């Protein structure tokens, strides 16, 4: 047991050395590497919930968009709508005109982002429902990439379809 603990401490030392080397290599990368302290903030609408008892008093979380606002934006075409769900879910049905960027496959979808979602556009992300995280995650990453104006339609696909608003199926 004593020997086991000794090895674990040795293991921690190995990880510290590896981290120091990793940080050094990162700093020496021609591109400058990634920032050691990531600037910016996670975009989250987790506090926003219709069933939340404090919801009446508290306004929507910053950057969050209600169903009514979403419908206005949709009718006016005033924002680029981004669907953060998987490709399969997107093909089964989505808000008409929405661009599909699965939240966990952003590197693969960089071309789509570059071509179809202008940097300076107002972007509205949505996913399945109030409780899903995908739109938060996608919005956070898009802000890191450089999108300035990213909002989240918190109600998502569930709220949109329950309201009976138009939908579209199939790949883009």
């Amino acid at each position, binding site marked *: *047991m004593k*020997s*086991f603990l*000794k*090895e*674990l401490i*040795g*293991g*921690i*030392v*190995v*990880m510290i*050395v*590896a*981290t120091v*080397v*990793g*940080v050094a*290599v*990162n700093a020496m990368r021609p591109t400058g*590497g*990634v*920032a*050691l*302290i*990531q*600037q*910016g*903030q*996670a975009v989250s609408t987790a506090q926003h919930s219709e069933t939340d008892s404090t919801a009446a008093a508290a306004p929507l979380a910053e950057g969050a968009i209600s169903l009514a606002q979403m419908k206005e934006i949709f009718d006016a075409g005033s924002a680029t709508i981004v669907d953060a769900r998987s490709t399969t879910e997107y093909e089964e049905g989505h808000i008409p005109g929405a661009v599909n960027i699965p*939240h*966990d*496959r*952003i*590197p*693969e979808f960089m071309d789509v982002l570059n071509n179809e979602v202008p940097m300076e556009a107002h972007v509205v992300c949505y996913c399945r429902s109030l*409780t899903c*995280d995908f739109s938060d*995650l996608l919005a*956070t*990453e898009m802000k890191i990439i450089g999108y300035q104006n990213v909002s989240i339609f918190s109600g998502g696909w569930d709220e949109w379809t329950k309201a009976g608003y138009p939908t579209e199926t199939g790949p883009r």
Partner: protein
Amino acid sequence: MIGRFLTSRVLNLILRFVIGGTFAYAAFDKVLNPAAFAMAVRGYKLIPFSLSNLFAIAVSWSEMFAAVMLILGILTRKAAASIFLLLIVFIAAISAVMVRGMVIDCGCFGEGGSHTSWILLVRNTLMLVGAFLIIRYNDGWLSLFPGTRARTTTTS
């Protein structure tokens, strides 16, 4: 019989190659592309946002170091201990995500990998047991610079 199998040097060597190989393969993409792995780390929502990049570098390089050391047999038991600790972190993180009902990219093998699921927990637990066996029973067989040897240094 089973006891002799678990403590055998052949099994120990196989475990070194399988676990070391898995970790080396997993770390390769992440070491080359820390930004993508940091993205996956942020998906877990477990550590402060600002530290996600540093954490991504620490994890991927630790994986790479430990894997190479394990395969070549350099301070073998300490390398296995690093992997043991990393696996505990991974198991805890995946469990925490699953308890919250989230399904995210696990970040296991770099970008576009599998999603968090119980299968990952089983795989990681098996590797955890393997790493434990290496720490406990490695005797320095076919190693470049094994450091401490289990059988000669421990009697318990």
